[in-house]
């Protein structure tokens, strides 16, 4: 800016997935932030996905927590933190340290995480700290440790650029890690890299795939065992590299006994997969939640690692297994030991030497001897009263844990619950005794580590909102108030970073991979200026890849191949629960939507939770498109919109996991999921619940738009933000007696002027509330799913209310249709009209004409499918 009021642009890191894209943040001077991709960041080189590009829309204060609260009343930090310190100390004294627990998240910065881990393990004296990374990464951690001796990601993102074959296993990379997907697509364009997708579902990632293997849910071990068998059979084993490993013979013997039929795949397709994998030296196997979230998650990871180890395709450019993580700092959490079974810097809690070294480094009074409770067990312990004081930081377990209803009830029943968050409007925060306002993403300083070991700085560009404070600061003050002044006398993230780096020298000395001791002497200025850098950072090695030299971290210096056997998911389908429920993410939302849900642009892509079901199943159940369905598991019932699609197989259904009590209480998907966990990793099986599906017998369906947030109470509702306010889908089993009265209650508009349209015989009712001709809110009720132009109506609150009850655009205004391209807000109908009028034939032509898909590119697969649909010749009639 030239006017002299410009605020400096800072380099920081995106708040969402584990790709860890660099962003350039420029405060706009009015509390907002302009967000651009950092062209110099090695993860994204300037690109951002739809979510990252919309970060600026999520830093508003509308839902922020302003001050500490105790039992719903605002209070001072002094009172709130003293209460936290007193209750944790009293609980530990009266019931033992194991009655205390922290449940934290991969959204903490490494420095926050470090203080939390130090406080509970070193000083409160329990290992009861676990994190939502347990739901995300634990199986990979376990698999890595079993194979390599440490939790080491061998390769880097550059391997995606240099590979000739990329295999996605249980990863919808196109939607969940769009920037990495675009790196793959760029490699495809540049060097003809082949792409194989292994996923029970046909996802957006399949659009560019050369091969899609829709395997039976949970059968990955059988597939990769078969690959190992074929590797051996075709002589593709690297005998020299095998010298750096143990366990090959047993692994192969087990693989040879494995039955491929468990995958349900066409043997010819499998043969093609094996041919491509074995025949391509430069192969990267990318895996994610489809592998991890399983009762055989660790075995799946090892089945994949076995193949890379047997062929020596690891740690060399363009080769290797690559786990992609779901959270911005899942990796940082693993490094500091934020999991119940780890210590710090990849040191092991159950190794006495490691424990003593850390205890001495921390000068800690007492260290737990054994691993703490992992997430699922932790909340069971909360439920049965063994844990009496619980501190939840930046995560929403009342929604995201399996058997979420039981977890919610457990938290509600816990003696003392502290929640740190930026908002009080989450299912979990509403259950807190003490609610602590944490500084938000754009207000915090520290570091995060992404999926390829790159440590990046996150930098504050905004002042903390209200009285909110950084998490390390809150945690450290509680440590001091509990009496440990010296250990928690931190005054800056840089100081914590240096302590963590110094501790990593001890890990290095034990021969561990995570060693950033080269940074232990960083000055504050160096920390401030820190460039993204990949660990390790030590004298012997800086960044780069691991394992090409054949040196691993087991005591014998070798890697281990593991004999792994296919095991079907824990929950069994049967007569009562005939469907297997897969869960996952949508393109424009993240986790439980506490931030992405604030962006109208992101919320317009898929504004409602849904259940994908195959047409054959839908026909049997007489479910029509747009019907609502009741989805029942042994644990709970959900109501979701049916999307009839061949993206899922017969017998399989899919639902996104983002919706909560705040946005769609009947769509808390993890309430359906069983708490069965992987015996090695403790990670729950979130993608293989069993359910029944039935049509929801709605007496009425509704669609509403509103300037202010409505308060729906119907059997089904789903609310989303819009530029003009809110949009809500509704339905109920029983119609109210008086629609005007119930609509006034919904919108909290007891006295507003009303315009109504009703056709009582058809159960059709439309009501609009307005003031001085401006629309405040409108609701459209019908006996079937309401047929109105939603995307147009959503723009109307605050505008002229004229003709709103028609539910349609005026004759001269075209209906844009649901948004496909969030960056530029381009709707499906707009694209379809342009395709028709201007005869646009390619995604690129659409981009040139409408800009759709030209910013983040996340919507390109959908534009491509739309084009296919539109240009399909009509069936002869």
């Amino acid at each position: 800016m030239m006017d002299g009021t410009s605020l400096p642009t800072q380099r920081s890191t995106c708040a969402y997935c584990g790709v860890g894209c660099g962003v350039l943040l420029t405060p706009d001077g009015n509390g907002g932030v302009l967000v651009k991709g950092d062209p110099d960041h090695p993860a994204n080189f300037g690109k951002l996905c739809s979510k990252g590009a919309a970060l600026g829309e999520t830093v508003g204060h509308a839902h922020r927590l302003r001050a500490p609260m105790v039992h719903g009343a605002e209070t001072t930090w002094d009172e709130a933190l003293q209460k936290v310190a007193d209750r944790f100390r009293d609980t530990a004294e009266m019931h033992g340290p194991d009655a205390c627990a922290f449940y934290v998240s991969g959204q903490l910065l490494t420095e926050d995480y470090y203080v939390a881990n130090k406080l509970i393990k070193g000083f409160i004296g329990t290992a009861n700290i676990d994190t939502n990374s347990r739901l995300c990464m634990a199986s990979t951690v376990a698999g890595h440790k079993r194979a390599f001796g440490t939790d080491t990601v061998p390769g880097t993102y550059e391997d995606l650029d240099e590979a000739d074959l990329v295999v996605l296993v249980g990863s919808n990379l196109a939607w969940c890690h769009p920037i990495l997907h675009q790196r793959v697509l760029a490699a495809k364009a540049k060097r003809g890299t082949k792409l194989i997708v292994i996923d029970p579902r046909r996802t957006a990632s399949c659009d560019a795939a050369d091969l899609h293997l829709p395997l039976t849910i949970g059968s990955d071990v059988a597939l990769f065992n078969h690959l190992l068998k074929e590797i051996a059979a075709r002589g593709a084993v690297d005998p020299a590299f095998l010298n750096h490993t143990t366990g090959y013979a047993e692994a192969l013997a087990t693989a040879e006994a494995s039955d491929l039929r468990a995958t349900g795949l066409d043997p010819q397709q499998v043969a093609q997969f094996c041919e491509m994998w074995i025949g391509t030296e430069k192969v990267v196997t990318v895996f994610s939640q489809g592998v991890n979230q399983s009762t055989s998650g660790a075995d799946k990871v090892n089945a994949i690692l076995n193949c890379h180890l047997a062929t020596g395709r690891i740690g060399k450019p363009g080769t290797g297994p690559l786990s992609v993580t779901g959270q911005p700092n899942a990796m940082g959490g693993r490094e500091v030991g934020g999991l119940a079974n780890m210590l710090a810097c990849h040191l092991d809690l159950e190794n006495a030497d490691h424990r003593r070294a850390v205890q001495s480094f921390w000068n800690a009074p007492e260290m737990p001897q054994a691993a703490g409770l992992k997430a699922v067990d932790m909340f069971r312990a909360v439920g049965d009263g063994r844990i009496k004081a619980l501190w939840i930081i930046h995560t929403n377990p009342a929604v995201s844990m399996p058997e979420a209803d039981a977890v919610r009830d457990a938290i509600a029943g816990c003696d003392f619950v502290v929640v740190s968050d930026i908002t009080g409007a989450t299912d979990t925060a509403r259950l807190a005794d003490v609610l602590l306002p944490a500084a938000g993403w754009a207000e915090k300083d520290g570091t995060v580590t992404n999926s390829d070991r790159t440590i990046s700085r996150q930098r504050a560009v905004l002042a903390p909102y209200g009285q909110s404070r950084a998490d390390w600061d809150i945690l450290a003050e509680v440590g001091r108030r509990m009496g440990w002044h010296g250990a928690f006398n931190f005054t800056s993230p840089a100081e914590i970073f240096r302590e963590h780096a110094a501790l990593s020298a001890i890990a290095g000395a034990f021969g561990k991979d995570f060693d950033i001791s080269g940074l232990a002497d960083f000055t504050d200025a160096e920390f401030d200026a820190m460039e993204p850098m990949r660990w390790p950072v030590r004298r012997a090695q800086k960044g780069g890849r691991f394992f090409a030299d054949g040196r691993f971290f087991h005591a014998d210096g070798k890697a281990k191949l593991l004999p792994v056997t296919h095991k079907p998911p824990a929950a069994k389908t049967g007569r009562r629960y005939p469907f297997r429920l897969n869960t996952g993410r949508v393109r424009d939302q993240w986790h439980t939507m506490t931030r992405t849900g604030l962006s109208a642009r992101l919320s317009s892509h898929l504004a409602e939770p849904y259940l994908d079901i195959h047409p054959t199943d839908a026909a049997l159940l007489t479910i029509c498109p747009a019907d609502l369905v009741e989805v029942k598991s042994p644990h709970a019932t959900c109501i979701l919109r049916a999307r009839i699609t061949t993206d899922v197989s017969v017998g399989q259904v899919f639902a996104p996991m983002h919706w909560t009590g705040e946005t769609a209480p009947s769509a808390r998907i993890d309430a359906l999921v069983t708490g069965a966990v992987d015996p090695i990793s403790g990670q729950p099986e979130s993608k293989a619940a069993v359910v029944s599906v039935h049509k929801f017998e709605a007496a009425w369906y509704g669609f509403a738009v509103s300037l202010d947030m409505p308060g729906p109470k119907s059997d089904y509702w789903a609310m989303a933000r819009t530029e003009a306010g809110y949009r809500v889908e509704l339905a109920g089993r029983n119609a109210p007696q008086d629609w005007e009265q119930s609509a006034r209650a919904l919108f909290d508009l007891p006295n507003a002027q009303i315009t109504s349209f009703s056709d009582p015989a058809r159960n059709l009712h439309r009501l609009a509330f307005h003031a001085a001709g401006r629309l405040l809110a409108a609701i459209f009720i019908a006996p079937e799913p309401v047929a109105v132009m939603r995307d147009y109506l959503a723009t109307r609150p605050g505008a002229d209310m004229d003709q709103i009850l028609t539910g349609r655009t005026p004759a001269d205004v075209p209906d844009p249709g649901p948004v496909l391209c969030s960056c530029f807000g381009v709707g499906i109908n707009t694209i379809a009209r342009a395709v028709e009028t201007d005869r646009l034939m390619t995604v690129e032509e659409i981009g040139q004409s409408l800009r759709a898909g030209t910013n983040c590119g996340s919507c390109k697969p959908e534009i491509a499918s739309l084009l296919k649909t539109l240009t399909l010749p009509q069936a002869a009639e």
Partner: protein
Amino acid sequence: MAREKLVMIGAGMAAGRVLDHLTDPSFGAASERFEITLFNAEPRGSYNRIMLSPVLAGEKAYDDIVTHDDAWYAARNITTRFGERVTGIDRIAKTVQGENGTVAYDKLLIATGSDPFIIPLPGHDLNGVIAYRDLEDTTTMATLSPGAKAVVIGGGLLGLEAAAGMAARGIDVSVVHLMGHLMERQLDPEAASLLQASLERKGITVHCDAHSEEILGEDGHVRALKLKDGTELTCDLLVMAVGIRPSVRLGQQSGLALGRAIQVDDHMRTSDPAIFAVGECVEHRDTTFGLVAPIFDQARVVAKTILDEDATFVQKSLSTKLKVTGCDLFSAGDFATSETRENILYRDPSQGIYKRLVLEDNRLIGAVMYGDTADGPWFFDLIQTGQDISVMRDTLIFGAAFNDREGPPEDPLSAVAALPLEARCNGLTHLSMAA
């Protein structure tokens, strides 16, 4: 060949329209086929009677509503005998006797219209008690001094137009209506209450459920109307607008078949094949007529019949508009409730808008609108054609603009926010592009 002698009695709107047709070559009338004589008791030719209300309200002048002036008749060689009453018809001799002489006819058209009904209340013959029928009545009302008081008995179309016209001239008007709500034949209670509210905003006092008992006078001039409940409404003028009686005196005298009016067949012939009748004086299939639309239909049919061409009069649903500025109402068809009928309602109290559509067997059979009547003709057309409205039922009440739109109707699959791509595209055009 000698020209046929056509005699017409009455020069109201029906007769005016018949003459328009008979003098219009494009209608099929040969020029100068008839030798026409036109009697009219009023000393003038045809004017647009239904526009008397705007004249009363001062929005139009009498000259604006004249449809046929002397020059018009002269140009068409029509003999006019205005201000002359017809005293009798000799059907054997085929002559009509006027006050000033007899005329022979080959064909005779009776278009004598109707007379206003005067309730025989005590005092109904006092000075200052009038009906609302013709220009004279209009002039009487229009020449009251501002601030004078008037009572109108009858809250129907005509009474309200009289009341509003006088109110517009600064007269203090009360409307006395026997029924529970105004215009009960055209409006339902809800629309009537909106109408009553807007009349009251014009300063008109409305008494519904009000039974008139006696007209009180002083010095032979009306002084007040006394109601059964004892209320006395002081007035300088009392207007009775409680309905009309078909004018059947000549038909009766000459022995034509009568019911409540002169009976005609589907071709507008009376029981005498040389005599035709049209307008408010006829009864067709047990129905009499007061609104202009069917009467114009009759005029067209009777003109064809007189021309010895085949034409048939068919009764259709009627629509009503009230010509009171600021009281925009429309009523058409049948809107009585019954178990087989369904209503679609639109209410916007802030704008004073009310609409009700009545459906039976997926057809529109009635419409009542108040405040916004722009779509009245469109609804009226749907009522008359009786077309099945099922496909547009959900948007029907929003009128033509939302239903005559080009393109396919909305795709029901666009009903929800979350639909897979292929389903969302179902309503869109599928292009067949050669690859």
